[in-house]
């Protein structure tokens, strides 16, 4: 009969309308079920997979619950246990970046020798395509994806060109955003460290055995010269030297200089942006 199809369709819409009406009359409408109340009308809403009805979220008061793997703009990890940046300036992230929006200045010591630390690290967030290759290929777990997506600013730069300071977050922040992955990673890191320690111990033991053998040999042949240092002594020396280096880096390497350079660069970026704005105004005026 003509019209049955129409009526059937209208039946579907009627059912939807009634369901929605019913849902709205409930004290906790469907879309608020399982959501997180933040007070002041602010909520984080989780959409359960079996949810029926309307899905509108009243952004910005209400926000979606983001899954752990959500990726937006990368962030750099400050290892709060060891009090150091995890980044070693190896540059792999800059190499795998498809739009090439990461650029890194590798730091060097007072002799001009490159060290495993970056003095500058930039990401142009206007160019970043959130692919997360940098995270995938970082061998030091130093770069991770941030969940913060509210980045709107008035000018592209300097605001959207993030420097190291803006990018760096403490390890705890990462652990809170990516709990599952963080746990896995910590377990892996611990294991790796354990293995490394074991290897070193073995090496030390071997070296000690060799040294003992040698000193035994030396005892037989006293003319062979002064005995070599023992393994334990060597380790202590290496530690001492490392501490010295760190101290040097802290004073002589000039953290202040680096910071000043960074500031100067940011100032420069700002100045250029202003100049451009002025020029644009002039151009459009003509």
């Amino acid at each position, binding site marked *: 009969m*003509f*019209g*049955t*199809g*129409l009526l*059937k*369709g209208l*039946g*579907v*819409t009627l059912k*939807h309308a009634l369901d929605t009406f019913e849902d709205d009359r409930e004290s906790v409408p469907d879309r608020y079920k399982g959501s997180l109340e933040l007070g002041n009308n602010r909520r984080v809403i989780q*959409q359960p*997979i*079996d949810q029926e009805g309307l*899905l509108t979220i009243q952004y910005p008061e209400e926000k979606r619950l*983001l*899954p*752990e*793997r*959500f*990726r937006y703009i990368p962030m750099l990890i400050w290892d709060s246990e060891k009090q150091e940046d995890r980044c070693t*300036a190896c*540059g792999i992230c*800059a*190499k*795998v*970046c*498809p739009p*090439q929006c*990461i*650029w*890194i*200045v*590798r730091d060097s010591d007072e002799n001009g020798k*490159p060290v495993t630390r970056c003095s*500058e690290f*930039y990401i*142009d967030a206007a160019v970043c*395509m*959130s*692919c*997360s*290759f940098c995270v*995938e*290929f970082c061998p030091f777990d130093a770069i991770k*994806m941030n969940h913060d997506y509210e980045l709107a600013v008035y000018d592209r*730069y300097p605001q959207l060109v993030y420097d190291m300071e803006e990018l760096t977050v403490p390890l705890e922040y990462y652990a809170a955003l990516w709990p*599952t992955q963080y746990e896995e990673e910590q377990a892996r890191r611990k294991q790796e460290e354990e293995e490394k320690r074991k290897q070193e111990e073995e090496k030390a033991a071997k070296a000690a055995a060799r040294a003992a053998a040698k000193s035994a040999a030396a005892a037989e042949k006293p003319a062979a010269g002064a005995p070599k240092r023992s393994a334990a002594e060597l380790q202590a020396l290496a530690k001492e030297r490392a501490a010295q280096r760190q101290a040097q880096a802290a004073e002589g390497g000039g953290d202040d200089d680096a910071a000043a350079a960074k500031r100067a660069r940011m100032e420069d970026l700002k100045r*250029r942006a202003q100049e*451009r704005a002025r*020029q*644009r105004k002039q*151009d459009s005026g003509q």
Partner: protein
Amino acid sequence: MTQATAVAEAPANDLALTPELADAVVGTWAEDTETAYFIAPDRILDVLAHLRDAQGYDLLSNLTCIDYQGYGGKLRADVSERLDVVYHLYSTRRGGGSVALHVRVPADDTVPSATSVYPGANLQEREVYDLFGVKFDGHPNLRRILLWDGFNGHPMRKDWHEAYYEEDAKPFRSRHPKGEYAFHEDKLPWAKNTTYPAGWDPDSWQEAVAYVPVSQAPQHENQPHLDTESIVVNLGPHHPSTHGVFRMLTRVEGETILALEPEMGYLHRNHEKIGERNTWLMNMPFTDRLDYLNSMSNNWAYALAVEKLAGIEVPERAEYLRVIMAEFTRIVNHTWSIGFILNDLGALQTPALYAIEEREMILDMFEAVSGARMMCNYMRFGGVVRDLPEGWREQAAYLANDRLPRALDELDRLLTENEILKARGRGVGYLAVEDLIALSVTGPMIRAGGLAYDIRKAEPYGIYDRFDFDIPTLPNSDIYDRYYIRLLEAMESVRILQQALRDMPEGETLGGRGGYTLRAPEGEVYGRLEAPKGELGFYLASDGKTQPWRYHVRSPSYINLNALGPMSVGYKVADAIVILGAIDIVLGEVDR
């Protein structure tokens, strides 16, 4: 070129050419690739016609070009002619693999246009002309297509450099360890970044609207007893019904369309040039941006092509994950497409919102597994990048077994029997399925014309041969059938999902090789799959470096537009909107 093998030895017999045509094959390319035949430029039309008529290769799937200037590989080092036009032919009746033909010409030379044999060569030849400067003799409308007339040069040639040119290959050396970076704004002072072809004046240029389009002559003669006049009307580029920035240049008489020409390129970014600068892996997130509704399918198609080229194995679980993602994507695409066909018909928003409600759920699932709703970037060469998070499989099973079937049935009840939809859709936009194939149309459109051609069955890739599913077909080849076929296909996808989610084993998700340092061996490959919109293919050529030498996307949205003009002629303007909607294009993929 690898020396033209003597004809007697050349596997011309594989082509089963008649003796008169045997001398058309001047060589083969078999050392480093699937067999490809060089055809003498002046004989190509004969060979194409023979293959079509005598051997049933009725689908000209892919037509593109390679520029060999500066080629760094070993096997093809002595290629003498610079440009190489490539044809890939398939048989829709038999299924199975392709025949690849090459026609090699010096720069600025002409090649006979294949449009007389395969009308579907129209848009693809225009693209090759636009981007490479190969002229096609006998093409009915050889104009630039993606770029405008005032564009200087042919950008896919290797010696053409873009305005932001930095280096030929990524990674750019400046980024590390010195950390130098130049902002594009600094490199390009305002208004000084444009060059024009010699002797071309932008101020005096006017777009010619008088050309009568093209692939279809007006069918409706002016009635002699009526004093009427036809006018040219632009539909678009800025109009919601064009699904993006897309223009239909129409000649109308009253409300009736006499001729229609698609105009595109507003979203053109020379994806393929970017792809040749990128390393192999870097292209993966760029493929997300082609057809941004179906990033999972795009990822898979690219991964499939590279895996074929480099011989990378995919673990079992990853194969299942790929199928699951691709079928979810198909449902997303088809419900979206159904919603917007109805939107174009004037059923504003209600069907569209009902249709894409489930899409939200599926996108949430994508986000949970890959980190992004649309730009998934989930697949890698040799598998997928991450395994499923906890609870994902159960949720997906709930979707596939419970929620999606229910939702699709509801859509069915809401729309299929609707008398208004039938009145608007039945018989509108008709084109016989033979014509559609001749126009290189693939995907749901030809299945709505009664031909059960689906690459998942015709040339199975991945593990599709393990699933029990049907290829639905409908007989009428009009927009009503094009709506309904999508619903039926979505239901079949649900069936595949149910099986895949049930059978998926535990195990590895990513094979060992294929990281960011991948060097694909020298050669060329055409990998294709059944994307929701049709045949999505990647044609890749490698010279053994870390970047592809040629990276071409055979995008279904773009090539299906071949049929837009012929399908619209004779119908009303309001119908043309729906006909476009029923082709189901995404401009990110059309313009690339």
